[in-house]
Each structure stands twice: as C-alpha cells, then as structure tokens.
C-alpha cells in the first residue's frame, strides 16, 4: 500500500477532549460521512433485530405443529421481522448508508445540500425505530407488515397505532433523504460533471429519491387514516361503516410496490460500480443502464395492482397491471445483460465485493424471473400469498439488496475507515451467504407451488422436509452474516492501511484520502472525463501485472 499510516486529518478524527465532547461531535454532526456512519450502526442493529425475529420464525417452522411458541407470538415474530426489515433496514439501507457517504464524494461536493436536514432524517429514523421497538417490547403487533384493513383498523388488539407511528415517522426520514439527494445531485455537481459523466450509483440513487418523495407520503396518509379509524372508530376502510378495504390496499401498494424499487435500484447502482471496477473496464451500455433506472422508477409506479390480483379487484384492472408488470421486467433484464457484457474482455479479479456482485446477478435473475411468474395473472392466482411469493421477494431483497449492501460495504470499507478487511475471510463469508441463502429460499419456491400459504404457524406435515431444509439453510445464512461483523470489526484496529485508492478504481471518491477529510476535497475537483474512464488497455495492463501470489 502506498501510505503507511492513516491521514492526519479525516472526518473520523476530531480533537474532543472529553467523552461527552466526542459524543456530541458525533450526535450533532452535520457531516454526511459521519451521519452515514450513524446510519450504518443503527441500520445494522435493526438488521440483527429483524434477523433475530426471522430466526424465531424459521425455528418454529421446523416442525409442522406450533410447538415452540403460540400462534400469537409467531404472528408477532413475523410481523416484527417484516416491519423491521422493510421499514428500518431495506428501505434506508443503501441510500442512507452508502448513498449518504458517497453521493457528495462521487459528485465532488463538500456535503449534501442540506446537512442539517440530513441529521434530522437520522433522528427521525431513530425516533421511528424507537416507536417500533416500544411497540414490539410492549406486546408487539400482529398485523403483518402490510397492515391490511379491516384487520389492522378494527380487529387486531396489538400495538398497531404505535407501530404505524414508527413507520410514519420513518417515512419522513426517507422523504427528507430523497429530497436531499435530488437537490444535491442537481445543484452540487463539481464543475464539468455532466449527467452522462455521473457514476451509475448516482443515477440509481436519483431514481430512488424520486420514488421516495412521490410515493412515501401516500403511505403516510394511508397509515394515518388507519390510525384515525382505529382510535375513533370512524370508518374509512371498514365496510361496516361504508368504507372500502380495497382503498387501503390501493393506497398501500401505491407506495409499497415502488418501495421495492427503493430497495433494489440503489443496489443495482452499487453493482454497476463493482462490476466495472473489478473488470477494469468501462461499463457496457452506460446510457442503457442509466435510463433503465429511470424507466424502472416511472414504470414501477404503474404496477401496484399486481399485489391485488385475488383481492376482488376488477379483471380489467388485473389485466392492465399485469401488462405493465411485464414491461417493468425489461429494464431489469437490460441491466443484467449489460453487466454480463461488461465482463467480456475485462480483467476480472475475485475480490470480495466482486463475489457479492456476481452473487447478486445470479440471485437477482432468479428473483426477477419468478417475479414474472407472479406478474402473470393466471399463475399468480395459484401462487400469490404462498411461500412462492416469500421466496421471490427474498431473492430480490436478500439476494439483491443485501448482497449489494454487503458488496458495497466491503468495496467502500477502505474509504470509510482507511483500512482493509481480511480478504480471505471476506471471500469465505460471501460464499457462505450465497450457499446458505439458496438453501434457505430455493425450497420455498417448491413449497409455494405446492400451496403452502405464507404466515402459517402450523402447516400440513407433508411440507416438513422442505421447511427443515429451509431452516437449515437459514442457520448457514446466519453464520454468513455474523462472520463479516467479526472480521470487519477486527479490521478497524488491525487492518492494513488502505491508501487513497486500494482497488485502482475510477471515480471522484477515490481521489481523496481514506478516510476523507471533513470537507471531502481540499480543492473542488474539476471533472474532465466520464465515470469508469478506464483506458482501452486498462484490462490488458492489469492482467499483465498479475503474478502468481497477487490477489485473485
């Protein structure tokens, strides 16, 4: 490595004398990088909590009888898992952690446009999270993360209001993050950084932000009306009072389907960065990948009804939604093909982030294709609300978002901390996660087509073998998630000094020191070339430099 010690000044260091000062300097920081670290800690905490709930669910499902816990506890466990994972992990994960850290760095800005708003987002996220936790501690909530009415508004006697308040507050955190990114990307780009020189991660985050500001408020008001109905017994969704429960589903999925793209689009952005860097090549079809992000963001708003094919929605609406769902599959396919084509004639190295990226492609392809199964109306009638759906969205969200999140964390870890993690353990963990993941969720496709409904506490005994396989895979998966926690933690003290650009990547974030100084760049950079500006002979040179014993 080029340097032997961490830079003298960086965003992590400060000269607080007392512990209180140090704590204040973090909790009152307006530095986007520090806020990203705050998010990183909080989000990983919630991930572990959601994972714990998932463990309870999977362990319960080893046997067909409901013997480990009562159905009430089981329902609370899977609801906790859903609420935490969706609202407090998947939606903020990549934008709030990696996006917060990288957006200003990648566009050569000193900070986000509204740094204090950014800190407010984090506090809103934490307050929302605390509400959700309080709800979980004092009795939990048993509606499922979808809060379907009239069950949530009238029949459930769990802490629905508290949980919804948490989700509502967190929604504003998400809106403010999106708003901040939009303005930052529009107004704060370094001189010379035109739209088509932007890294694809920025495009993806921009598309995500649009969804966040357009869709989240609709969820907010839909949930607010559930609370109103629940507290005052007035009916807006309750058919007993003239309302229509399907209106809730429409409003809910108007947000919650695009929310899926809030989760996957930034992940796709990360993958574009990884594939290009570790192939030492310009990304294939830059414009197509960039515009496919925007296309997904827009088309993603027109397909929410495919969650409602059996809900007694009209046949006509079902057909329209199904048709547009087919269309939204295309931009995702375009991305996958372009990533694959990027590999051709590259100089590929199997570093940990690349392993995650390759894993992402494999799993996302399966997730995406099974999405088509679910988008086809006739097949959906059979498989919706079964484990087929469960398997599908875990392939997209765990196989997609979490793989990209982990890949991104590893890729930018040296930039965030200035130190390298252990590459061997990184590779091993990536493989464990890949294997464990497939073992957990592939059997669920079979279970789903067999007709095993989701959210079942007890189930017919003939499904047991597949459930046991799934639980076995889940335990492998859990180990895979714990290993990185350990070696990344160790790297904070013992990791090799990374230097400014350990991967030899392009991109503005690699042009500053690791970890970067508080205002990112000593001088505002002036951009003269596009992202991924690898010269044509970069791959050849990289391969020529390879000697036995160099990293794979």
């Amino acid at each position: 490595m080029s340097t032997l010690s961490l830079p003298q000044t960086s965003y992590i260091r400060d000269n607080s004398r007392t512990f209180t000062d140090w704590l204040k300097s973090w909790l009152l920081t307006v530095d986007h990088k520090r806020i990203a670290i705050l998010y990183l800690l909080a989000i990983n905490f919630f991930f572990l909590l959601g994972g714990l709930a998932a463990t309870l669910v999977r362990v319960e499902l080893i046997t067909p009888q409901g013997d480990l816990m009562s159905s009430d506890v089981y329902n609370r466990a899977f609801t906790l898992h859903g609420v935490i994972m969706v609202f407090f992990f998947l939606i903020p994960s990549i934008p709030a952690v990696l996006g917060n850290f990288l957006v200003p760095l990648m566009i050569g800005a000193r900070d986000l446009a509204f740094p204090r708003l950014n800190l407010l987002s984090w506090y809103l996220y934490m307050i929302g999270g605390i509400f959700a936790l309080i709800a979980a501690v004092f009795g939990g909530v048993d509606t499922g993360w979808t809060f379907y009415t009239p069950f949530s508004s009238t029949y459930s006697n769990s802490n629905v209001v508290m949980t919804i308040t948490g989700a509502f507050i967190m929604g504003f955190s998400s809106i403010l993050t999106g708003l901040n990114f939009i303005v930052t990307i529009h107004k704060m780009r370094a001189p010379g950084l035109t739209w088509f020189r932007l890294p694809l991660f920025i495009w993806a985050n921009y598309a995500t932000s649009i969804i966040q500001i357009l869709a989240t408020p609709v969820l907010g008001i839909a949930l607010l009306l559930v609370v109103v109905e629940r507290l005052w017994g007035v009916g807006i969704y309750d058919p007993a009072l003239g309302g229509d429960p399907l209106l809730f589903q429409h409003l809910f999925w108007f947000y919650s389907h695009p929310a899926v793209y809030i989760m996957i689009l930034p992940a796709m952005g990360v993958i574009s960065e990884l594939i290009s860097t570790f192939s030492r090549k310009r990304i294939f079809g830059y414009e197509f990948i960039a515009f496919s992000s925007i296309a997904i963001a827009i088309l993603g708003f027109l397909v929410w009804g495919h969650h409602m094919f059996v809900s007694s929605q009209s046949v006509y609406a079902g057909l329209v939604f199904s048709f547009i769902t087919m269309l939204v599959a295309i931009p995702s396919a375009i991305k996958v093909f372009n990533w694959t084509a990027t590999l051709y004639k590259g100089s590929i190295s199997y570093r940990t982030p690349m392993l995650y990226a390759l894993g992402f492609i494999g799993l996302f392809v399966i997730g995406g294709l099974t999405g088509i199964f679910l988008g086809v109306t006739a097949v959906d009638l059979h498989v919706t609300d079964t484990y087929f759906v469960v398997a599908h969205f875990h392939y997209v969200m765990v196989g997609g978002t979490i793989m990209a999140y982990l890949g991104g964390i590893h890729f930018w870890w040296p930039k965030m901390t200035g130190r390298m993690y252990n590459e061997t353990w990184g590779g091993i963990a990536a493989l464990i996660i890949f294997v464990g993941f497939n073992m957990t969720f592939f059997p669920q496709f079979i279970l789903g087509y067999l007709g095993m409904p989701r959210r079942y506490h007890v189930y017919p005994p003939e499904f047991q073998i597949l459930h046991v396989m799934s639980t076995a895979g889940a335990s492998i998966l859990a180990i895979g998630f714990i290993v990185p926690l350990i070696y990344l933690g160790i790297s904070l003290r013992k990791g090799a000094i990374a230097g400014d650009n350990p991967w030899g990547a392009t991109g503005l974030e690699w042009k500053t020191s690791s970890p970067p100084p508080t205002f990112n760049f000593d001088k505002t950079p002036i951009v003269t070339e596009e992202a991924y500006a690898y010269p044509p002979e970069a791959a050849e040179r990289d391969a020529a430099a390879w000697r036995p014993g160099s990293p794979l």
Partner: protein
Amino acid sequence: MATITHEEAHTHTHGPELQHQFETPEQQKEAATLGMWAFLVTEIMLFGGIFMAYIAYRWAFPEAWEESAALLNTPLATVNTVVLLVSSLTVALAVNAAEEGKKRRLVTMLVLTIVLGLTFLVIKGYEYSEKFAHCAGAKDPISWITGSDLHESHECLVPGRGFHFPAEHGSASGGHGAAKTATMQSGHQLFFLLYFSATGLHAIHMIIGLGVMTTILVMAVRDRFSPTYFTPVEIGGLYWHLIDIIWVFLFPLFYLV
C-alpha cells in the same frame, strides 16, 4: 452591473448566510428553491391520498355527498377563501419587498399574512365548534359554552359513535328506518370524516405555516435579509402558497359541489 455592486455581491458570498457546502449564493438559493419544491411534491401527494379517498367515495355515494355538503357552512368557507387568497397576495408582495430590500414593506406584509392566517384559523375553529356544539345538543358554539339551551341533539356531524345525520336531509325522508341506516353507514359519515381529515390536515399545515411566517418575521425585523439574500422569505412563501392551493381545491370539493 457596476463593478462596485459586483464587489458587494462578492463579499456577500462569504457572508454568514452562505453555508459551507455551497460555492455561491445563487447555488444555495436554487438548491433551497428546488428542495422546497421537492418537499411540496410530497405535500401534494400526502393530500393526494385524501383526495383519492374523496374521489372513490364521492363516486360511490353521490347522493350522500350532495346532502352532506348542504350542511356545511358555505358562507364562512367563502370568507375563508377570500382571506386565504388575500394572504397569498400579501405573501407574494412580501417576497417582492424582500427582493427590493424594502424592510418596512416586508414586515408589514408578513404581519398582514400572519393576521390573515390567524383569521382563517379562527373562522375554521368556529366552523368546527359549530359541528361539535350540535353534537352536544347546543344550537351554536356560544350556547354550548354557556351551557344554555341544551336539548337532545338532532344532528351530530362529527364522525364517531354519536354520528347522527338529520333525517329530514336524508334521501329517504319518509322511512324512519332509512334515517337510521344513513346514520350507521352510507356515505354521510364518510363525507364528514373526509371533511374533518382534509380540513384538519390543512389546518395543521396552516399552523406550521404560521410558525414559518413568524420565524421569517423575526428574521426580517433583525435585518437578516438583503436583496441578495432573502431565500427564507421566498421558500416560506412557496409553502404558504401551497396551503392556499390545497384550500382552493378543498373549498369547492366540500362546500360547493
């Protein structure tokens, strides 16, 4: 533009109001405006959910809508519309005054806006209390407070267990059973629920808007603005206008048609 102005503008770029992350005041101002607009987009979508429910239920219960709208206090709402439109003008003039660096006019306009905003809330509050007074059995809010003239309530338009839509306005004026049905479900209660949700949410925005305006007023009095820096006035104004726009739709949708 004269060189001297140029220099002044330049000194201002390093003035206290330019935040560290921006290069120029123009950049900061454009960022603030775009940011405010992005926020207004979310506000519009927030109300969009209520409007969606309104459209669906209006389509489902057209008669209930017609009958219910007749029971709202249209004259008061008309006054409120005028109040809000005037306040929109004063806000626009306040921005204009800030742009031209006329502090006196700016302060006057802001004070006027706040007064108009309060007027709106007072009228709205009276309208609400009328409905609540009817539920309590009083003829109007004053007799409700004084506790005089209480009798069995013949109408209660506040959604909830006590909701009671007066039979003489119901579609089935003949059948006593029908009036009961109208009380329990059908569109009447939904209408008033949406009415209270939408105008209530609007009133909350109004209160926030008043807070924003007061802050700007304090800043204006303390000479924080100049012709080169008046972004808070401008984006605060945007927010105020949005509140106005939402009322522009709420007014005809609930009180007129």
